[in-house]
């Protein structure tokens, strides 16, 4: 009996009139937890009842506390007939279970009814008395903190980052149960809401258990999603990054920075020995058969990835892409344009010519089958390649074994984080992604029939079978991601996320992340606290300022780590072997340090690292694509989809690449590719924030080449287009202030000359011979040209060539040019922050916008569809700019687009983002830039001492054994305080000790230089802080309802988060049978979204918070039936409830050392 839950119903207000005769209501309340129910007295004839009830006490297991929500039902007493329900409030008790979160829930909650929406409010008080229970076999995981934030939360330090945790639970969807036919829509909706609440509680508890097992105390970057699979059930799944977090207290001593590295390993070994290897986020040392099996799989995989990346996609119904569009071209650029889908067969052949090392046979489960096989193998139950049939047996067995082992989960060195403590992220390889098309098993599958009927009786008892299938699916995908990362020479995947798209019984599972090499420091070193980098200048200087601060405090351990490159450009350096590149790429020397090779473009799914050297500003770049598909059923449908997928992805990449070039940028951050399936079309939407990374070479222009040079009007047409493109590029350069800084390039002038020359040349002779151009997007050259092409392009600044002999290219160019520029005063990005903007004010507006477009014309061509979709997104953006015009100058941050095809001819686009205004004065920035430059210079100097062969550090072991070996080394090295740098060796088996020494030496040198930098910088942040605080004073505060800010970002500018109160994870269903009366679909959804916001705010306020950070709308499923005057919508939102204080207020309360330091610089706590 480890917990006592107490609830008190205080009062109600604004209740609806339930008795027409008296225009009043006789309200009473039922309070239910688990199977216990209490009732208040009836408060007669009032719309503002004062119940002031006693404390209702529930004595419950903490397991239940985690799973169950407190359910409060407000009813109208009726003497003669059944009592009418007014509405309900579900309160998640979880925040009360952690000692560091909220202590009491108290406040007004909207009373929500799934049919009528919000109907009045109720004031409730909830407390929990937890008894300490040290039962080792407990099933609960009370006290594990959950954060949606994908970085280390602001008032915590990461002592350890343990790694990936995932879990999923499956259940029957109440909407599809037989009982649904006889019960009211309200009952059905409530059953669903309650079930999902239960399931996510359970999911969280299970994940918490895994975290405890790993020795962690928190989950960061917690991402929970649910898949409505219709008849085949309801899946709630979650991924996250297990961490050990330390709350930063005011009395924070530098000693504690060192402390954890000694204490945690010992703790781990005591608690759960398995935790140690898993903590490393890499392969474990345990040589169980399971592991050798899985490693064999991935091993076979990784070798052939470069070519497999795209070839595989087609044949395994699982698409995956390398980091860059170049790769696409290399992979199957040849047949992409005109060739019909059926011409798959050439690809494997071609693939094999590339894959010099592994014949495709070596990996039994992926490559063997072709599409035709798939359609011939009946009842595989999975759309994922015909391989299903062959692999199903062994794989399942394998998986079962794996699930038995608790270790299995931690096989994945994945991190859901998107931004990292300084020095954590060493190199970024590129985007890795995998997709898989699956066929959801039907309900009348005889094998599953029994379990299902059993489950009907009891939702809570899940049979192991179902989750296992889903687990296996995800397992596959994760393995693939892992192997892709390996192929890129990376041992970890950061910014990792998973998603699904379901249409009828076909389901696409997608996973993507960024392959990266991480500093091993995070495994034991304590100094990983995240600074307030985002709320202020995230200039590299500032981060280094932090380091300097640490150094000053004498916590040498925190400096023991060394990244081999300066922070500003280090992450761009290629992690893979230059001589043995996973895909053809154009490498140049880093424009910052000139020591290491960098790729010509870099795509990532993470946020822009704080220390990154960026020139100019960034902007949102979207690739949008729509493809028609024939209606089909079952496996035929799955096949059709998987045939289309690679083309879709290829096109998306092409578009992204072109748009990136058009903006003169060379890197994408926060890349998110969403593919949505409908009955008769596939939608692809790729969003990312483009930036100009200073270390990377300047992108060349875009050239247009015509195929048929004879026609004069045609030539003119082409030259016109070319001119337009050149103009746009020039305009964009100005708009985003992208001018490669002279300091960093050897020959900036010459460089520019080359560029312009090229452009002029093209204008002059509009038809350059395609053969001479190094890179042909849609070239019809032979694959054998590949090598020579590479040579040609190497080291040259070259323009992209777009051939417009086919309609596709015309369409491409069209879409390139139709992207309207953002109106003056606006910037947009889909990452947390916008490079180049630092002086945020506290003005903040989070919003959600949803549009549904009906395609009335059924026979649309691909182009037509594309245009519609493109316009839809563009217009939506335009609308947003217009609506937020009062906030100018402002930036739309974290623009998160979600597309769906809810019905045959409907396209739904939902956007959630935050508009933040900033001060126009750019004087600060100028100062920063100059500092930047000096810093860079200093760094460049230091880098000279740092030089050593790249492949030594960058070459990752593709052999699990070696990493295991490295691991044992690490565990041996753990006790030593100097471990961090040693740890790196776990990923580079050839690393020898002299490198370490070199690194250490280099670091000390660099530290010296940083010192001077930060002193330079000190002048600038102060005035900014002041101007911001002025603003915040002006902003509105007060009113009888506490203002709750909401933002999808992990911070609120000008403020400091002082406490995390717990995770908000809410699921609502709203249904109406009087759609017209509620203002049609728009009116219905408008009020529903407003209601959801209101309920989130109310819950946060009741926890004592004043903001939600990392807010996101995970799901917005809208269904309508206008003929029946009905509509239904499901929304799932999540975020972190926090308390923030304005920095200006912090200033007023003097004796807080950290806050003071946050004021002056971003160095903040941790020193």
């Amino acid at each position, binding site marked *: 009996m480890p917990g006592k839950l107490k609830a008190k119903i205080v009062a109600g207000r604004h209740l609806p009139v339930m008795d027409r005769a008296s225009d009043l209501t006789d309200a009473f309340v039922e309070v239910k937890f688990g199977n216990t129910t209490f009732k208040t007295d009836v408060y007669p004839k009032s719309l503002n009842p004062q119940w002031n009830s006693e404390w209702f006490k529930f004595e419950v297991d903490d397991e239940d506390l985690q799973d169950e929500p407190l359910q409060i039902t407000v009813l109208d007493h009726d003497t003669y007939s059944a009592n009418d329900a007014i509405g309900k409030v579900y309160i998640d008790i979880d925040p009360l279970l952690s000692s560091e979160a909220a202590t009491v829930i108290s406040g007004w909650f909207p009373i929500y009814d799934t049919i009528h929406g919000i109907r009045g409010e109720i004031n409730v008080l909830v407390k929990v008395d937890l008894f300490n229970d040290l039962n080792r076999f407990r099933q609960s995981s009370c006290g594990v903190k959950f954060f949606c934030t994908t970085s280390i939360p602001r008032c915590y330090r990461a002592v350890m980052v343990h790694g990936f945790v995932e879990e999923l639970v499956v259940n029957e969807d109440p909407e599809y149960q037989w009982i649904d036919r006889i019960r009211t829509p309200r009952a059905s909706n409530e059953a669903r809401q309650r079930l999902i609440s239960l399931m996510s509680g359970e999911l969280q508890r299970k994940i918490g258990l895994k975290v405890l097992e790993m020795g962690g105390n928190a989950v960061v970057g917690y991402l929970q999603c649910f898949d409505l699979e219709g008849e085949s059930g309801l899946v709630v799944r979650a991924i996250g990054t297990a961490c050990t977090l330390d709350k930063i207290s005011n009395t924070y001593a530098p000693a504690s920075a060192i402390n954890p590295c000694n204490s945690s390993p010992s703790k781990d070994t005591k608690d759960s020995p398995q935790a140690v290897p898993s903590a490393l986020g890499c392969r474990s040392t345990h040589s169980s058969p399971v592991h050798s099996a899985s490693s064999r799989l991935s091993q076979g995989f990784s070798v052939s990835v470069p070519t497999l990346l795209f070839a595989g996609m087609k044949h395994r119904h699982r698409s995956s892409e390398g980091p860059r569009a170049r790769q696409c071209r290399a992979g199957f650029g040849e047949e992409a344009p005109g060739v019909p889908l059926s011409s798959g067969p050439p690809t494997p052949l071609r693939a094999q010519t590339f894959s010099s090392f592994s014949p495709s046979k070596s990996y039994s489960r992926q490559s063997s089958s072709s599409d035709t096989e798939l359609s011939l193998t009946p009842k595989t139950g999975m759309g994922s390649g015909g391989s299903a049939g062959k692999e199903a047996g062994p794989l399942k067995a394998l998986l079962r074994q794996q699930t038995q082992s608790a270790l299995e989960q931690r096989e994945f060195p994945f991190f859901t984080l998107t931004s990292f403590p300084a020095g954590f992220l060493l190199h970024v390889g590129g985007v890795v992604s995998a997709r898989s098309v699956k066929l959801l098993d039907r309900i009348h599958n005889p094998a599953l029939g029994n379990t299902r009927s059993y489950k009907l009786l009891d939702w809570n008892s899940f049979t192991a079978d179902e989750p296992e299938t889903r687990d296996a699916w995800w397992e596959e995908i994760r393995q693939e991601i892992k192997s892709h990362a390996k192929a890129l020479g990376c041992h970890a995947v950061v910014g990792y996320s998973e998603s699904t798209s379901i249409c009828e019984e076909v389901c696409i599972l997608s996973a993507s992340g960024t392959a990266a090499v991480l500093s091993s420091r995070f495994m034991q070193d304590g100094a990983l606290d995240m600074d307030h980098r985002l709320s202020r200048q995230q200039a590299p200087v500032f981060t280094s300022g932090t380091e300097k601060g640490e150094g000053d405090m004498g916590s040498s351990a925190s400096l023991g780590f060394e990244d081999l490159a300066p922070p500003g450009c280090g992450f761009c350096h290629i992690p893979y072997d230059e001589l043995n590149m996973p895909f053809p790429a154009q490498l140049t020397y880093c424009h910052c340090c000139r020591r290491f090779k960098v790729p010509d473009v870099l795509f990532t799914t993470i946020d822009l690292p704080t220390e990154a050297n960026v020139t100019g500003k960034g902007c949102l770049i979207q690739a949008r694509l729509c493809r028609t598909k024939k209606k089909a059923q079952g496996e035929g449908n799955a096949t059709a989809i998987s045939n289309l997928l690679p083309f879709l992805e290829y096109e998306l990449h092409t578009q992204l690449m072109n748009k990136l070039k058009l903006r003169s940028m060379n890197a994408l951050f926060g890349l998110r590719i969403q593919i949505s399936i409908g009955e008769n079309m596939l939608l692809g939407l790729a969003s990312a924030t483009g930036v100009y990374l200073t270390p990377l070479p300047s992108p060349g222009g875009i050239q247009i080449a015509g195929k048929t040079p004879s026609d004069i009007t045609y030539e003119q047409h082409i030259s016109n287009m070319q001119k337009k493109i050149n103009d746009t590029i020039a305009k964009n350069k100005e708009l985003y202030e992208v001018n490669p800084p002279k300091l960093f390039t050897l020959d900036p002038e010459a460089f520019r000359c080359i560029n312009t020359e090229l452009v002029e040349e093209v204008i002059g002779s509009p038809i350059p011979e395609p053969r001479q151009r190094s890179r042909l997007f849609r070239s019809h050259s032979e694959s054998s040209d590949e090598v020579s092409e590479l040579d040609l392009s190497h080291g040259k600044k070259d323009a992209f060539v777009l051939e417009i002999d086919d309609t596709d290219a015309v369409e491409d160019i069209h879409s390139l040019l139709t992207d309207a520029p953002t109106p003056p005063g606006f910037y947009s990005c889909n990452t947390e922050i916008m490079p180049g903007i630092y002086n945020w004010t506290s003005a903040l507006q989070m919003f*959600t916008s949803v549009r*549904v477009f009906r395609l*009335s014309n059924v026979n649309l061509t691909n182009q037509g569809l594309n245009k*519609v979709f493109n316009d839809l997104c563009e217009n939506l953006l335009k609308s947003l700019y217009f*609506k937020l015009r009062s906030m100018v100058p402002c930036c739309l941050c974290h623009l998160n687009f979600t597309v769906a095809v809810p019905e045959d001819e409907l396209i739904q686009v939902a956007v959630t983002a935050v508009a933040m205004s900033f001060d126009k004065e750019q004087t600060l920035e100028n100062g920063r830039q100059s500092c930047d430059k000096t810093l860079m210079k200093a760094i460049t100097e230091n880098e000279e001492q740092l030089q050593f062969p790249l492949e030594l550090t960058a070459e990752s072991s593709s052999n699990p054994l070696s990493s295991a070996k490295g691991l044992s080394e690490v565990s041996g090295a753990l006790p030593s305080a100097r471990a961090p740098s040693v740890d790196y060796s776990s990923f580079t088996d050839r690393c020898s000790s002299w490198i370490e020494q070199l690194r250490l030496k280099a670091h000390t040198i660099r530290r010296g230089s940083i010192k001077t930098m930060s002193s330079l910088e000190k002048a600038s942040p102060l005035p900014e802080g002041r101007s911001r605080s002025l603003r915040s004073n002006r902003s509105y505060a007060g*009113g*009888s309802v506490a203002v709750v800010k909401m933002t999808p970002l992990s911070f609120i500018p000008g403020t400091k988060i002082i406490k995390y109160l717990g995770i908000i994870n809410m699921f609502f269903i709203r249904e109406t049978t009087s759609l017209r009366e509620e203002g049609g679909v728009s009116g219905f*959804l408008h009020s529903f979204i407003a209601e959801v*916001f209101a309920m989130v705010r109310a819950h946060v306020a009741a926890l004592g918070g004043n903001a939600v950070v990392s807010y996101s709308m995970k799901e917005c499923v809208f269904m309508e039936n206008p003929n029946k005057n009905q509509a239904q919508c499901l929304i799932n939102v999540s975020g972190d409830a926090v308390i923030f204080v304005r920095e200006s207020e912090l200033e007023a309360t003097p004796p807080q050392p950290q806050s003071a330091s946050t004021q002056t610089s971003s160095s903040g706590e941790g020193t």
Partner: protein
Amino acid sequence: MTMELDVFVGNTTIIDEEVYQLWLDGFSVADAVKMRLENGALGECEVSGEVLHSDTMDQYRTFQMCERLLHCPSKLANQLLFQIPAHHQAMLIERYYEFDHMFAREVLGKKLSKGTKKDLDDISSKTGIALKSCRRQFDNFKRVFKVVEELKGPLAENVQHHFLLSDLLAKDYAAVVFFANSRFETGKKKLQYLSFQDFAFCACQLISYWTVGAVDNMMDDMDVDLEKEFLHDLKDLKVLVNDKDMLDQHKSLVCSQLRGRIRVFTEMEANFKNLSRALINIASKLTNTKDVRDLFIDLVEKFIEPCRSDKWTAGDLTLFLTHYTSTASTLETYRYQVIWERYMGVVKSCILKMYHD
């Protein structure tokens, strides 16, 4: 190909004051979009009609959803559905309750009933105010009336307290409520020249001096009704015209004061008895509800019109009324000074306000 659904919801509710006004004025979405396009007040950002339409729709929906709350403005502050900054809340309420004086003039003194509501389309076509807007204003009157009708205490303050309106607006509402309650006749042709502001001023005077609340400021006072006792006492003033001596004495006193000071002295002298009788008669009849209703028409017919036909200036009238009031108090045999001044004070300022073309 149509936009099936298009919504934008901000955590802080975005309110465009211009669109709000268009909505209040009863424009349809299409008209509002047209107006916004024409106004070109959208500044430098060139926007298509499509964007404007979508924005206008969103705003209109927001207002529609807020409207329910605006009916009980105190709810707006502690509702949870919309997060609206305080200054915007105040603006929303104030603007929602603002009314066209043209419209108010039309319904002033009318019973705020369904019958009157049916006549709104006439008023709409007469005043050129959109029917929608008329309905809103009428409903506002009715709503305010219903709430404060039975409340004790100062009328304007009650309105302000319950509807969170500005001082000025609350006073106007007090006038509307007061007129509606006493059902003063304002519709007669002869009264047409009077504006809402004229009546509002008079209402304010009546509320301040003639109601129960006016004399003793206890909380259990009613501000809506005229004090019965006072009206009854007014009968005593008759002595001023019935007693011939007193009438003559009064006349001579006034004349001596005004001689040479007003242009219309002769007319005044000739007309004094008629004018005095008119004022006293009005006073003495006020016990009758019917005559209370006719207060303004009586003032116009019996007093203002004769003066006007004699071409009195406003200054003349002021002097006359001032001395007419003050000299009566000096009459030795006159015992009703308090009542007299309470009556004449209001009548004087009302007449002066109403004395224009």
